Structures are given as C-alpha cells and as structure tokens.
C-alpha cells in the first residue's frame, strides 16, 4: 500500500523558512543560558572586562564562593518550603473546589466561578499594599507574625496559583466522563470516595500541570518576596541580589548561583512538560 501523502506536504521554501526561523529562535532562546554557563566559570577580572564568548581561563571558584558570599543555602531552604507549601495547599484546595463546581449545580455556582476568574486577572501590586498593611496590623494586634515570616509568603502566593488552579481543574474535571462517577455511585461510593478514587486518578495530568504552574510561580516570585520577607525568611528571588555590593557586582558568582537555582526547576519542568501540554489541552483551552 502506498504511503499516504503527508497532510502538510512541505515545499522547499517552507522547509528553508522553517529552518532559518527555528535556528534564529534557538539562538535567542539559549543566549542567556550560554552566558550564564560560560560566565559562571570565569575568574572575577574576566567578567569585569569586555565580554568574551570563550573564557581565557576556567575556574570553579564561583561555585564554591556563592555559598559564603550570601547565605544561599538558607534562601534555598526558604524558597523550597514556601513554594512546596503554597503548591500543596493550592492544589488540594483547588481539587475540592473544582470537583464541587464541575459535578454539582447549586446556587452561587456562577458567582463563584466568575469571582475566581476575575481575581485571576488582577495585578499583584493591587494586593501588595493591603496585604502588607494587614499583615503588620495582624502582627501588632494578635502577635501572629505574618509579615517577615514564611507563613505570610505562603498565603500570598496562593493569590497567584489558586484562581488558575481552580479554573484549570474545572475544565479538566469536566472532560472526565460523568459515567465513571455514576458507575462508582452504583457501586455504593459516596461523593468523597468518588472524588478520591475515580476523579483524582483520572485527572493526574491536569493536577500535575496545575502543581507545576503553582510551584514555578512561587519559586520565581519577586514582588511580594521583596516586601514581605526579612533577613530570616528571604527567598532566592531576593537573595540573589546580594551578590551586588556597593562597590562590585560579582557577576561570575551571580551567574553560578543563577544556574544552581535554575537546574532543579528546569529539570523538573522538562520531565513534566508533557503533562503540562496535556493539562492545558483539556483544562484551559476548552
């Protein structure tokens, strides 16, 4: 049997345009990564002179020094605790809410969805001032330290991830056939067991996609971290600025530290990216 013609039989021009476009885009995309990697291996006088693609001498010194110039490890731990807690909280809360919205018709359903959707579009700066002042007031009147603590940061990071998580999971849950629920009900499963044993396992790609998104926004967040943290709760986003002193910027150390904090997230992301595409397809685009 003859091979069917490729649906999009590419012409020679098409192939060339594609090639040139993709090469240019790859260079643009990778330029910062190349700079990061090469500069992180240069001695200080090299990064303080004119830029060179190929280092004149290589050193791993920056990778040793980053840990003592600033307390990078402490920032790492802070970022990890804050991001993980915010992710878990927002995923768990969103699963219950999305299940409620996608499986039940009840009074207030529409208002809830619209509210969640519209908070998603609000600028972070809008919540920054009030949350800052609220945290200070709460701390003064009750002694619960939200300002300057990890807890405060975890709560604020939900502002980004919760609306998106709910929105996406509603879409995802709705793509799961209702017949599965009904079969479970016939077998005598209550709603909670149906959720945990039927819906959640079927929605794993969507849940992973939402989790990855929540973790990455928290790991990369700068605005709230710059206002709400103090010396003890500082995250990587703010800590990395410590390599710039009044007199010098240790660019080689900045690049080394940037690389070190990026590797775990990028690796995790690339491992999970196919879930992200699957989750987006079913959740957000419907």
């Amino acid at each position, binding site marked *: 049997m003859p091979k069917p013609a490729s649906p999009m039989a590419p012409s020679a021009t098409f192939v060339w345009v594609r090639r040139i476009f993709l090469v240019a885009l790859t260079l643009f995309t990778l330029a910062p990564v190349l700079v990061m990697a090469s500069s992180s291996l240069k001695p200080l006088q090299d990064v*303080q002179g004119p830029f060179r693609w190929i280092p004149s001498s290589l050193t791993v010194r920056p990778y040793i020094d980053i840990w003592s110039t600033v307390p990078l490890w402490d920032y790492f731990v802070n970022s990890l605790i804050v991001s993980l807690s915010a992710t878990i909280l927002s995923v768990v*809360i969103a699963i219950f809410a999305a299940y409620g919205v996608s499986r039940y018709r009840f009074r207030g359903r529409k208002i809830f969805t619209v509210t969640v959707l519209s908070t998603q579009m609000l600028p972070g*700066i*809008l919540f920054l001032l009030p949350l800052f*002042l609220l945290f200070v007031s709460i701390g003064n009147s009750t002694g619960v330290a939200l300002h300057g603590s990890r807890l405060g940061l975890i709560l604020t990071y*939900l502002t980004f991830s919760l609306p998106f998580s709910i929105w996406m999971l509603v879409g995802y849950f709705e793509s799961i056939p209702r017949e599965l629920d009904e079969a479970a009900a016939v077998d005598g499963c209550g709603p909670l067991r149906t959720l945990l044993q039927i819906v959640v396992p079927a929605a794993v790609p969507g849940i992973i996609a939402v989790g990855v998104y929540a973790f990455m926004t928290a790991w990369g967040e700068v605005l709230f971290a710059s206002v709400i943290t103090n010396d003890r709760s500082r995250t990587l986003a703010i800590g990395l600025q410590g390599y710039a002193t009044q007199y010098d910027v240790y660019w080689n150390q*900045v690049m080394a530290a940037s690389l070190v904090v990026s590797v775990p997230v990028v690796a995790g992301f690339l491992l999970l990216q196919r879930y992200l595409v699957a989750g987006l397809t079913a959740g957000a*685009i419907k």
Partner: protein
Amino acid sequence: MKPRYRLLPYLLLLPALVMELLIHIVPMAVGIIMSFKQLTQFFIRDWTAAPWTALNNYRIAVDFSAPIGQSLLNSFWVTCSFTLFAVAFSWLLGVAAAIFMQEPFWGRGVLRAVFLVPYALPVYAAVITWSFMFQRDTGLLNHVLHDQLHLVAEKPFWLIGDNSFIALVVVSVWKTWPFAFLTVMAGLQNVPRELYEAAAMDGATVWQQIREITMPALRPVNQVLVLVLFLWTFNDFNTPYILFGKSAPEAADLISIHIYQSSFVTWNFGSGSAMSVLLLLFLLVVTGIYLVVTARWRDADA
C-alpha cells in the same frame, strides 16, 4: 442530586472560599478603603487610624498638570506601548514556532524542550542574566554589536535612557513567547488531520493550509491567549524590577513599578492605593470590552 448531598458542594467550596476571602476579597476591600485615606509611613502600625481625605488621592493621581499626575500618565502610556509590542512579538513567535513544529522533523523533540527553557527558568535568574548581557562595558550585546559586527560606533547604554524600553521589550518577549508556543501547541492537537489531508488532495500549498485551516482553527485558543498575555504583560512587575531596580528609567517606567515606587519608596500608601484602584478599573473595562467583542465574533461565526 440526592437531598442529603445538598450541602456538599458548599463544603467542597469552603476552603477555597475562605482563602479567596482572605487573600483577594478582604485585601481588595482594604485597598479601596486605603485609597480614600491619607496613609503615610506614620500609620503603618495601624492603618485604620489614618485620616480620611475623600477623593484627594484620586484628584492628585489624575491631575496631569502636576508632577505626580504627569509621571503617572507617562507611566500609563509606557505600559500601553510596552504591552502592545511585547504581546504582539510573543504571540507571533509562539504561533509561528508552534505551526512550524506541528509536523515531525529530525530534532523536533529536543527543540521543543529548548523552547520551553525560558518558561521554566526562574524569572529572577533569567532577568539578572539579561541585565548582565545589557551591561555597557562588560555585556554580550555591546560586544557583538560593537566589537564583532561593528554596527555601532559608540557602545550604547541599554539600561538607562530611551534604550531601556527596547531592553524591557526584548526580555519580556524572551520569557513570554514560550507560553504562547505551549498554548498554541496544545490547541493544534485539536485540529482534525483530515482537514489537512483533504486540502492537500485539492492541491493547497502549506501556506494556504496554514491560512485556511490552522489559523481559523486556532481562533478560540488565540482569543484566550491574547487576553492572558495582555493581562500578564500589563501587570508585569518582575522584569522591570530586576532589570532596573526600585526606580525604572522614564522610558521603561511600567505602571506596577510606578505604584510600587510611590508606595514603598516615597511611603505614600494612600496615593499608591488610588493608583491601584484606577489600574483595576482600567483592566476591568478593557477586559469587559474584549470579552463582549470576542463573544460577538463567536456568535457571528455560529
């Protein structure tokens, strides 16, 4: 639904409701109240004690003949043109890359992973690297433009003056286009292959197939995508803050940085809140119009 489950949806929603109240509704209400108060650093410990000023903060913000109003207006226009360029380029790159990578070719999987790197890199690590690349004397950009290609006679400054706008757009596009790529890629999976097969049968070129099949099929995806890109870019704080610090050059003074500066650098929370509320109103109006218009299109299609 059985009667005994009547309360269940509300119970399922309860945690989300509590959190939404705590992190969105209450702060928003507080923010609106704050915008009517003369809230300076003396009232940080107890913001409720600050005196009322009625609409004074708003009056100052929109008095475009005075310095505060003037700089707010400048910042608004800067943000609008920045958003226009950044969204347009991000969208174009994302759509083009997704379409070019729709059909398998050698190395496609690797390339897809590469293109997602800007999206995965923590924003501060990436933007700090860009700011290093934009340094006048030690940066890669001037090295390439001046030392290698001899395109410019004098090494330009990129992070101060008018060029800072270009720098901001470049970094923003770099970190935003992969999201467009990802979304369009997901959207393309829903386009039935039979359409292409039929078109190829009729002798349509690849470009015709893109124009006649791919782009119309992407319309619903694009409508959501452009809105999301607009909102993210318009509200972006991370990029300018890491690139320029607490006060950006006039040419790149985005609204979020502007509000941050007037609140936390000059310690005028009341006026910062008023600006936030104005920003919120603007976004609500624009989004509302957009949703109505795109709904019209959809009805016209149907």
